[in-house]
Structure formats: structure tokens, C-alpha cells
């Protein structure tokens, strides 16, 4: 019987690993709770992509909720997300603000010219300094900012139709209820 001990020991391990895989499907590993949720968005002053002379700041955007979408022309996952934004961007009910991250303005403009521009407004963060304040891990990421300038929802990774339906739209609906 003692010869079976290694076998049963190993089976215990298999059960543990099976549990680990199940646990991972239940808990999104990327779901790092953002300390910024329900906190005011960090103060930022960033130039517009198409007109660097003009700047956009947290204060200038107060009064209406908006969705910041971090993107870059070098980011492959952004390319996957892009068609979703082109379709859903109009339907979510809040303005879509593009946040061009660590990108050359010319590259970004060419990229938008080729794939279409879903954004009402695009701000550019060439050196990625402000992105650090937002806790950006990498593109794409999205932040929902409410009328008072508070971050209400954050998504790491591409927005998919499912995510928009299940997470983003309820979050936006919640905003609408607060400010009748």
C-alpha cells in the first residue's frame, strides 16, 4: 500500500491545481482593484492631439461625464478594440475622449486616418508622465469620469461588446440616475 502514497500525494496536487485554474476563471487576474475608483481623477493638463497649442485639463472637463480611452498606434490590442469603439462609441451616451499614450502625433493621426476616429476629443501624453498618475499599466485602458471629475469605473485591457454591455453601460446608467 505504501507504494501508492506518491500516487495519492500527486492526486492531491492535481486537485489543488484544478482548483487553481477554476479560481482563475472566476477571478480576473488583471482585476487589480484600482485605488482611484471613486476618487477624484488626478489633475492633468494635456495638449490636444490635433492642436497642441490648446490644452485640456481636469477642470475644463468638469460638468459632464466622459470616458477616457487610453490608446496608441503601436498597441496591437488597441487595434482589436478599435472596431468595437467605432460601433459602440456612439451608443454609450457619454463623450469618448481619446488618450494618446506614449505615441508620435504623426503616427497617431495616420493610425486614426486609416482606422477611423471614434473620439470626440483626443488628448496626447507623449512621454506618459500623466499616465503614471492615472496608474495606467499599458494601453488599452478606459476610465469613466463623472461630472464632478471622479473616476467611477476602470477597465484594464480592450473594451469588448460584452464588457460594454455588462460593465460599462450599467456604470453609465448609474451616473445618469444620480444627476437627473
Amino acid at each position, binding site marked *: 500500500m505504501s*507504494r*501508492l502514497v*506518491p*500516487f495519492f500525494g*500527486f*492526486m492531491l496536487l*492535481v486537485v*489543488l*491545481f*484544478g*482548483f*487553481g*485554474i477554476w*479560481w*482563475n*476563471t472566476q477571478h480576473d*487576474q488583471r482585476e487589480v482593484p484600482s485605488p482611484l475608483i471613486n476618487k477624484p481623477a488626478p489633475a492633468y493638463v494635456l495638449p490636444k492631439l490635433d492642436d497642441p497649442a490648446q490644452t485640456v485639463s481636469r477642470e475644463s472637463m468638469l460638468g459632464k461625464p466622459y470616458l477616457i480611452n487610453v490608446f*496608441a498606434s*503601436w498597441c*496591437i490590442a488597441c*487595434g482589436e478594440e478599435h472596431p468595437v469603439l467605432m460601433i459602440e462609441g456612439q451608443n454609450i451616451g457619454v463623450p469618448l475622449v481619446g488618450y494618446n499614450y*506614449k*505615441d508620435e502625433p504623426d503616427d497617431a493621426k495616420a493610425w486614426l486616418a486609416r482606422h477611423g476616429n471614434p473620439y470626440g476629443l483626443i488628448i496626447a501624453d507623449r512621454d*506618459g*508622465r500623466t499616465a503614471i498618475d492615472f496608474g495606467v499599466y499599458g494601453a488599452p485602458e478606459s476610465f469613466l469620469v463623472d461630472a464632478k471629475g471622479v473616476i467611477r469605473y476602470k477597465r484594464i485591457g480592450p473594451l469588448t461588446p460584452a464588457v460594454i454591455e455588462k460593465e460599462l453601460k450599467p456604470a453609465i446608467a448609474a451616473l445618469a440616475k444620480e444627476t437627473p
Partner: protein
Amino acid sequence: MTPELGQLALILALLLALAQGMLPLIGAWRGNRALMAVARPAAAGQAVFVALAFGVLSWAFLHFDFSVRYVADNSNLALPWYYRLAAVWGAHEGSLLLWIFILNLWTVALAALSRNLPEVFVSRVLGVLGLIAVGFLAFIIFTSNPFERLLPMPPDGGDLNPVLQDPGMTFHPPVLYMGYVGFSVAFAFSIAALLGGELEQAWVRWARPWTNVAWGFLSAGIVAGSWWAYAELGWGGWWFWDPVENASFMPWLVGAALIHAQAVTEKRGSLRAWTILLSIFAFSLSLLGTFLVRSGVLTSVHAFASDPRRGLFILCFLAVVVGGSLLLYALRAPKVAGGKPFAVVSRETAILIGNLMLTVAAAMVLLGTLFPLVGDALNLGKISVGPPYFGFLFTLLMLPIVLLLPFGPYLRWGNKGETSLLKNVLYRAGFAAVACAIVAAFVTGGQLKAIAGTAAAVWCGVGTLLYVLKRWREMPAGRRYPAEMAGMLLAHIGVGVFLAGVLLTEALSVERDVRMAPGQTQSIGGYEFRFDGVHVTEGPNWHGDQGTVTVSRNGREVAVMHPQKRTYTRGQVQTESAIDPGVTRDLYVALGEPMDKKDPEGAWALRLYHKPFVRWIWAGGLLMMLGGFFSAADRRFRTQRAAATEPAVATTAQESRA
């Protein structure tokens, strides 16, 4: 079109692997020579097709074929060709392809070098290797296809993780995999022995050189990984007890135990079941390493792709391979302890103690690595154990091994130990160790770790060298150091060198984070570091800031160092530390951040390290690697079968079979 050829080659390889995994096993069972004869050609054909697939993927990288998703994700137009080649195994899909390719290399080598072994036995061994190949090829084809297309084809690709753009990283995975996968040979030998119920124990002798070579490669792979972490991660650490490092370390520990257990089984006929069990463990831990890295069950700094489907596949594969072989072990392993009896003072007793320590250490590392998972399972929240747990327990477990190590060569098999000789070693090596420890205590100002390191290193080193000297005096030229013994001596000296490196570095390193304006100097470990400012520099696919630090000692210039902070084309920032290597110390400078972003010409944050004897860590590892290779080259392992079986036959009479 070519990528599809690669995929086709993989599918053909899978079919051949199926043939290699089934027909020879059936043939060996039924005594059908025609079926057994399938093994070698099938293995060779499979290797050719996998090599073809590997070549196609390399070709796609070299020719910027971004229509292949894997190429587009891991390379771009600016990446130099040598890193494009290294990018082939830079991510999940390609590293699996490398895994299977190396398995094929081992299989073909075995097929070519096993002509003098019994055909039935070789058929079983190749069959088992074929089954392993089936699992991995199916894994690649069904969950991780490296040839998947990306349409429309992007004009330029992503980037190979800049952390991986380093010469150390180019060699680390292939060498490490040579070790990992090499244990599959020892595994296949054991399974073949269990299947066949070999009455003779000769298979252990045949397996020994393969195990030694695999272990040597694994040592080299771990050394390369450790060196890479030191040079590339920018803060001068050489081991982190990270899950992925542990995944390579566990097979190494069990492999070290296995090498010694095989010696006992071959020479004395005892520890048979244990040797089989260790062979299974060593390869299982290699598979487990793959599982841990690839399934995303544990997250770590090495965490790459994590996909539950992949995790599930590897888990099932693991369950079948390891569960199946352990079940086979339970049913077929030799039931009665065979071999000659153990004497209290004998080489086999010493090896048994060492074996226990190494296996318990591997279990300890496994437990520590899986702790976060156990925490999740028992709902204890996020818990993990850090370096203190590993450091403390590992030291404790290795202590008996270090203490026993110098006696190893003097101890005889069986009960013929000459205690006077042992006392002799004890006094001499002990005296040398204590004397050096006292000197070290004065030199280092009583640093405990430095004293312990010196004592342990001298104890192992002098103890082993005494034996080298004894052989030199007593044996006629040409017969002094047979390769097997030379390998053992080299590896044991390596342990001493390694111990000196680890403990002295830990104790004496000076690490300082400083702010320096151009022209300022800092004095660390007797060296004057002068910061001469930063200027802009360019590489093939990055631009960055390069600092100049001039180091002098007693007014004489020692080194001019150029740490860099690179920004790669895709925006990732990577610190390239500058290292001035030396036998007794490394100087290590890494560039932090400029104090004022707008004034990169001004003051910077710098990390200045003085690391004494750090190189000895890797030198020790490389000596162990050489030890493995030397032992494997012993002529005794190449002698014909007739001669090889003769010492083992005597022991078989004592065995009863299930």
C-alpha cells in the same frame, strides 16, 4: 504559404509521434520485432518535421512576416536579427516549439547511441518518449499554434519584451530546456524498466550518463538565468525565489539526488524503487515547471500568457503522465528491498542522507511556491512566503550535505570504511576551515555570514582537494582520475566555490542609492565612484541616456562604466546596468532617474554596488555543470552490454517480483 507548411509539418510530426508512442510499445509487449523497428525511423522523422516547423518560424521572424500573429506580437522592423532569432522562443508558443524540438534532439541522440542495448528495452524507452511528444505536439497544435495568421497584416509588429533583449536571455531558455527535457530520458528508462519488469538492473547504468548530462545542462541553464537576472533586472540580485525560478530549481534538486541514487543502485543494487521514484519525480517537476509557468496558476514577474484552456490541457497531460507513471510504480516497483545491506559508515549511507535532504528541500520549495494557491483554496486570503522562509529552511536542509560532502570520496561502498582516514579528513579540513574562519572574522569585522561562508567553502574545497592530492600520490599516472570520479570532484569543489560566492556576497555587498551631480564622487567598498554626467545615445532599436562613471581606487583609475537607460521603439523603458567584473568583486552601476526631467545633463539618482565574490556563485554552478558532463563521459558507461551487466547480476537473486 510557408507558415502553413510549418503547421503541416507539426501535424505530420504529431502523427509520427503517435506511431512512435504506440507501435513500439505494442511490439515490445507482443514480441513483434517489426513493430519495435518502427521506433527509430519514427523518431527521426518526427525530429525532421519539428525541425522544419522550427525553421519555418525562424524564417518568418528573419523575414519580418508579420502576417504570422506570433511574429507580429514579438518582433518589429527595428529589432536586430539575433534578437529576432531569440524571439522565436521569446513567448509561449515558440518556447513550446523549442521544448518539443529539444525533446526530439534527445530522442534522436538516444536512438543513435543505444544500438548496443536490448531492442525490447530501447523500443519501450523510445515509445515512452514518443508519448510525451504526442502530448506536447497536441498542446501546440490545439491550444498554442505559433503559425496563426494575423489578417490584415500589420505594417510593423510589436516588440520582444525588452527585458529579454539580452545575450543571457538568448541562451538561457535553450540550455534550461536541454536540462528540463533531458530528464525525460531518465524517466523513460524507469518507465521502460517498470513496464518490462527487467530482472537485471543494468538499465540504471545505461540511464546514468543521460541523467548526468541533463543535470549538467540544467545547472548551466539556471546559472544563465541567474546571471541574466543580475545583469538585466537592474538591482543586482541573483536569486529571488520566484515561482518560475523555483520551477527550475526543484528538478535540479531532485536531479542531484537522482544522480547519487543511481550511483548507489548501479554499484550496490539497493535503493532501486527509490531511484525509479526519483526519475519520475525529476521529470514530473520539469512538467510541473512548464505547467506553473504556462497556466497562469501562479503569477510572478515571469508571468507570460495565461489562458485557462492551456492550463487545463497541461493539467490533464500532467495527470495522465505523472499519475499514470506513479500508478505503474505502485503496481510494478520492486517489492522487496534488494541489494546489499547498508553499513552505518559507508558511502551509501552518506548518499542516502544527502538524498533525503535534497528531496525534502525540493518538497519545501514546492510547498513554498504553492503556498499562495493553498491560501486561495482554504480561503485564507492572499498569502505567500518570501525569501526568509526559503533562505532559512534551505540553509538548514543543506547543512548536513555540506558537512558530509568532504567525506564522500573517502567513504567506501559497503562496510570497508577506514575510520582513520575519515578522522584524518575531519581534522585537516576542519582545521583549515576554522583557521580561515578566524581570519575571515578579523577581516570582515565579525560578519557571521562571511565567517560561515568562508568556513563552509574551505571545508568543502579543502576536503575535496585533499582527496585529489591523495589520488595523485597513490595512483599511477593515467589511472588517477577516471572521468566519473573527476566529474564528482569537480562538482563537489563547485559546491565549495558556490558557497563562498553566496555567503560572501550576502555578507559583504555594499549597495547604495545616491543622488549625484556631475563631478561628484562617492566612496563605496574602498572604491571612488565619480559621476561624469549623462549624454544621449542610440542603439539599433532604442534611444537612451548613457551615464559615465569613473571608478578609481587609491587614486588609480580602475574602470570607466557606462550604465544606460534605454527607451525602446515601443516606449518600454529598460535599465542597462554597467558591470565591471572581477574575480574577487564586481562593481555595478545602474542609472535611476534624473533629478530634474528637464535637465538630463544635471544630477541623477544612481545605484552603486560593490559586490565581492558574486562571480563565484556562477563559477560554482558551472563547475557543477562540468562535473555532470565529465561523469557522463566515463568510458565505463560506453562499454558493451555483456560487460555492463555483470556486477548487477549478483544482486538479482535476492529479489522477488510482483
